[in-house]
């Protein structure tokens, strides 16, 4: 091959390499950017006076003096709305029955929309659920609710051949000529005065418990649950995996039994995680009865079984990569086999073993299926360390799924879900990053 073609080949391979890295980086960005921007909105957002009220009442947090004056201002503007409502109600009383029925239906829709926007109206009975005790706490949600108040959504299904289409009808038009008509422009013009939006940084999203199944508050129980489960799984799987790897590489005699064990281990690595979930339920809870029902312990054990093959494999490879000369040097100094493993082989293999461990830790933190039947609940408070043997826990992975598909008002609290996604991604990234740093440090120490 002449030098010209060789150079062209070299360059094109370099270009190919750079190209594929760029594509990968772009793909990563496309995934990460929405996760980060959406997720961050759980902590940084435009909050309303309702949010500050909620913080004070539910979490005893925030300055009550400024809040009192804010509430006074907002009440002043709101009272006009309430006045208009009372005036309309007396007007409604005097109407003819025919008209009365027609307006009553519409009026109750208006009231519901107002309650959603501003919280309970004067004279309403105190709501049972916390979510109904406050108006909209987030400004972007408030804007959506104002739209619901001003416009009635209707569906156009006149043409059976096309999908029915949504269209909006102004409610103000429906109340034209009544005393309620001015209320609509008033609300849309004075919304800021009634809700007093302001830039809010809510770190409590990370450290608070949730209130009323994630309507308010934070995701601390989930973060803690994920932490307990992942670390618990590691406590079981890491020592066991390393011991198994030492056995396979150092002690096992090659033969039928040994190759059977090895192929079983490889097979286990490919088993879908939902199977581990079922296994955990059947074995740890129903058979071994490590706990009466779901518990952190059962979940951690299930996750441990799931990540065990990965840890064993990584540790095996790391141990096999230790130069034979270290072993010879140690043995020739009169070291026992066990001592050689403990003081020379394992320390030299540590970077590889740890990498495998932390990657598994990330996997344990992220998996949903294994904990569905063994450890996860959709809502709950943070559990104490002493409760891990008996209590189930919320966890990020499971609650993301739950909020996305099973929560009764998922669309109301998308920001919580995004926040959880970001938290989970951060936890996993952080773990992997710490693996890289740890590995680099130990390798540097080993290389001198």
């Amino acid at each position, binding site marked *: 091959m002449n030098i010209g073609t060789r150079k062209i080949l070299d360059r094109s391979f370099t270009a190919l390499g750079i190209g594929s890295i760029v594509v990968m980086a772009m793909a990563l960005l496309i995934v990460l950017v929405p996760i980060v921007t959406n997720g961050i909105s759980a902590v940084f957002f435009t909050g309303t006076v309702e949010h500050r009220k909620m913080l004070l009442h539910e979490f005893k947090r925030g300055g009550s003096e400024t809040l009192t004056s804010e509430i006074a201002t907002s009440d002043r503007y709101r009272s006009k709305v309430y006045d208009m409502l009372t005036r309309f109600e007396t007007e409604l009383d005097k109407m003819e029955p025919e008209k009365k029925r027609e307006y009553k239906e519409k009026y109750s829709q208006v009231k519901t929309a107002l309650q959603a926007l501003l919280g309970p109206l004067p004279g309403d009975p105190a709501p049972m659920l916390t979510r109904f005790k406050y108006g909209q706490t987030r400004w972007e949600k408030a804007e959506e609710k104002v739209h619901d108040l001003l416009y009635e959504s209707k569906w156009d299904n006149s043409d059976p051949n096309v999908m029915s289409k949504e269209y909006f009808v102004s409610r103000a038009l429906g109340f034209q000529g009544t005393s309620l008509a001015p209320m609509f422009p008033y609300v849309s013009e004075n919304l800021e005065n009634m809700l007093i939006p302001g830039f809010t940084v809510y770190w409590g999203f990370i450290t608070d418990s949730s209130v009323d199944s994630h309507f308010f508050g934070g995701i601390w129980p989930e973060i803690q649950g994920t932490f307990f489960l992942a670390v618990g799984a590691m406590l079981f799987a890491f020592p066991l995996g390393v011991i198994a790897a030492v056995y396979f590489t150092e002690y096992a005699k090659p033969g039928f039994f040994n190759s059977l064990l090895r192929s079983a281990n490889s097979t286990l690595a490919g088993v879908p995680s939902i199977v581990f979930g079922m296994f955990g339920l059947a074995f740890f809870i129903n058979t071994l009865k490590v706990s009466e029902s779901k518990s952190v312990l059962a979940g951690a054990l299930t996750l441990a079984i799931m990540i065990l093959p990965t840890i064993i494999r990584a540790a095996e490879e790391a141990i096999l990569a230790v130069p034979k000369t270290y072993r*010879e*040097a140690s043995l*020739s*100094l*009169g*070291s026992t086999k066990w001592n050689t493993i403990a003081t020379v082989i394992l320390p030299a293999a540590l970077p590889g073993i740890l990498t495998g461990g932390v990657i598994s830790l990330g996997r344990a933190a992220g998996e949903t299926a294994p904990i569905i039947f063994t450890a996860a609940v959709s809502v709950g408070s943070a559990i104490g360390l002493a409760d891990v043997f008996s209590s189930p826990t919320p966890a990020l992975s499971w609650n993301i799924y739950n909020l996305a598909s099973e929560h009764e008002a998922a669309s109301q609290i998308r920001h919580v879900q995004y926040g959880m996604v970001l938290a989970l991604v951060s936890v996993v990234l952080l773990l992997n990053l710490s693996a890289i740093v740890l590995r680099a440090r130990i390798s540097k120490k080993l*290389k001198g």
Partner: protein
Amino acid sequence: MLMTADARESSHSAPAQKAKRDIYLPPARKTVTGGGTAHISAKEFSVYYGEFEAVKKVSADILSKYVTAIIGPSGCGKSTFLRAINRMNDLIPSCHTSGTLLFDGDDIYGKFTDEVLLRKKVGMVFQKPNPFPKSIFDNIAYGPRLHGMNDKKQLMEIVERSLRKAAIWDEVCDRLDKNALGLSGGQQQRLCVARTLAVEPEVLLLDEPTSALDPKATAKIEDLIQELRGSYTIMIVTHNMQQASRVSDSTLFFYEGVLVEHAPTAQLFTNPKDPITEDYITGRFS
């Protein structure tokens, strides 16, 4: 120490290069006191890799406190024989032995022999320097710690003494906490010698300890062997016949697994009995 500066000097004055045989003239050596008994003795000793007999019915006595060289063409079983003495061959599953190999009168391959104890008494330095990826201090202290020494001060004494014996103390005394892999190849090899000495063995097995080193580092290792001669029983495998003649008192010549000739070094190099030996030392075959 055991040797005067003059004696050391003379051991390295290069012999005249005129006649081929002249370079094998033995150097002036100090006298050895208290040695000369059979420290290791092989009787009809064979080593097999599976079916293959790599060392064939070797019988020889290795004298205590003297330096014994093993020479022979590549693949003739030198390393195999050497590694049989401290049972490093145990690491190779297919390897087994027959005949007897005695250390201080005890059968090395006897049923009740503790190979860990044996290796403590029979230290080995390998062809390629193999320090642990630990600090220089921890490398030397590895053996003593293993055998129960934990006192910091005593450890430090042992480390210094061993490094001094291996003639590397001056080069590393200010960086004992640095990783040993940062040393040069020659320094690493002397460190390995020091590491072996720290265990206070009775026998030192050196398998081509200088094959990876430059002439200067080689000279240092050879000096070292001269220094240690008289205190340890030393066996050295080498491909360098000048080296064998410079450092050893007696020499074993192996050929295809057979011990062809075993004689005092001066005699073997100047007046070999066997024609194969003669062919080999005169370089008539590779």
